[in-house]
């Protein structure tokens, strides 16, 4: 092999180009190979969250794809997905609603990057429990939902409130249809 000056500009360019190409190929290959496993984990997690919101250990989930996505658990409980903004990043969750279209069975929240111990508390059972049994409708109209915010996590709590209000607003036509 020809002896080259390893500090010459040409060599540095060549070296970094080759290095970066190798790394890019490696990372792409790994990402493609692992993607199905990661997707499956995400699916599983979604399933667990829906079931946790509905308050049952295992059941059948059917996805009703109308104008608004709704999950039907065991043919009786409606679970609606929510998406919103926390303080640092996205938050999301599920509301499980009884067949009467008004009584909340349970709720489940998760977040991407809220502060552990403050905003992160929305994933705890203690926070989520308080939603069970609340009414979201009264006299055929939406009723603003009230819940205890988390001390020290005003922004995250506001985000949860906004997310709930927005989602319920959007789902009004769906509840109208359910009205007995």
């Amino acid at each position, binding site marked *: 092999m020809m002896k080259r000056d*390893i*500090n010459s500009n040409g*060599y*540095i360019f060549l*070296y*970094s180009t080759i*290095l*970066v190409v190798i*790394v890019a190929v*490696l*990372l792409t290959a*790994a*990402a493609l190979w*692992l993607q199905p*496993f*990661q997707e499956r*984990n995400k699916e*599983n*997690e979604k399933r667990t969250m829906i079931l946790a919101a509905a308050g049952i250990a295992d059941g059948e989930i059917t996805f009703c794809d109308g104008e608004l996505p709704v999950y039907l658990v065991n043919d009786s409980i409606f679970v609606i997905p929510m998406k919103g903004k926390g303080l640092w990043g996205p938050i999301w969750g599920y509301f499980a609603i009884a067949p009467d279209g008004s009584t909340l069975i349970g709720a489940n929240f998760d977040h991407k*990057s809220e502060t552990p*111990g403050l905003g992160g508390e929305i994933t705890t059972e203690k926070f989520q429990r308080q939603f069970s049994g609340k009414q979201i409708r009264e006299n055929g109209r939406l009723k603003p939902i009230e819940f205890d915010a988390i001390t020290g996590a005003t922004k995250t709590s506001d985000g949860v409130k906004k997310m709930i209000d927005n989602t319920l607003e959007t789902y009004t036509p769906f509840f109208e249809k359910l009205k007995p």
Partner: protein
Amino acid sequence: MSNFKKLLIEPLRKSNPVTVLVLGICSCLAVTAQLKPALVMGASVTVVTALSNLIISLLRKGIPSRIRIIVQLVVVATLVILIDQFLKAFAYDVSKQLSVYVGLIITNCIIMGRLEAFALSHGPWESFLDGLGNGLGYSLILVIVAFFRELFGSGTLLGYQVIPQSFYEAGYQNNGLMILPPMALIIVGVIIWIQRTRNPEMQETNQK
């Protein structure tokens, strides 16, 4: 053989990256509230230090010294992304718990420190052992800190209840301070204190 032992064992004791070199403290505070994430974090950092040391040592004669830090970063970042992807695929719940800290392994001072101080000037086998040793030294401290924090902070170990219910009925309470980051610093401090008391030669003398 003695060289082998020295490279692997010394970082666990008298040249421990956390208690003696005081590197990698940041992640030590963040992931030690429970034992399980601490174990996974320790294992991940060990894999990254060992492999990056090995790779950099293999490349060391070809790396242009003007861009060596960038090359080191690229190698470390690649390994960290691979580990992050693997955790997401095969240990999803742990990867969620560790969240950003896996990505932050890239900035773990121990790794760059070992690359600069050791791998660039030593052979691949020695560098691999040095990386392995330093990773294990870091893991050791992480596990000790996490053990105490989870035991006294939550009364559990690896998620299993260890402190019996009768203790709680008798008025025992979990120590909330243990869960908070400052306690990790205090425990690391105590470990350093014990280590230096037992090895007087490690104590610095005040220079006037």
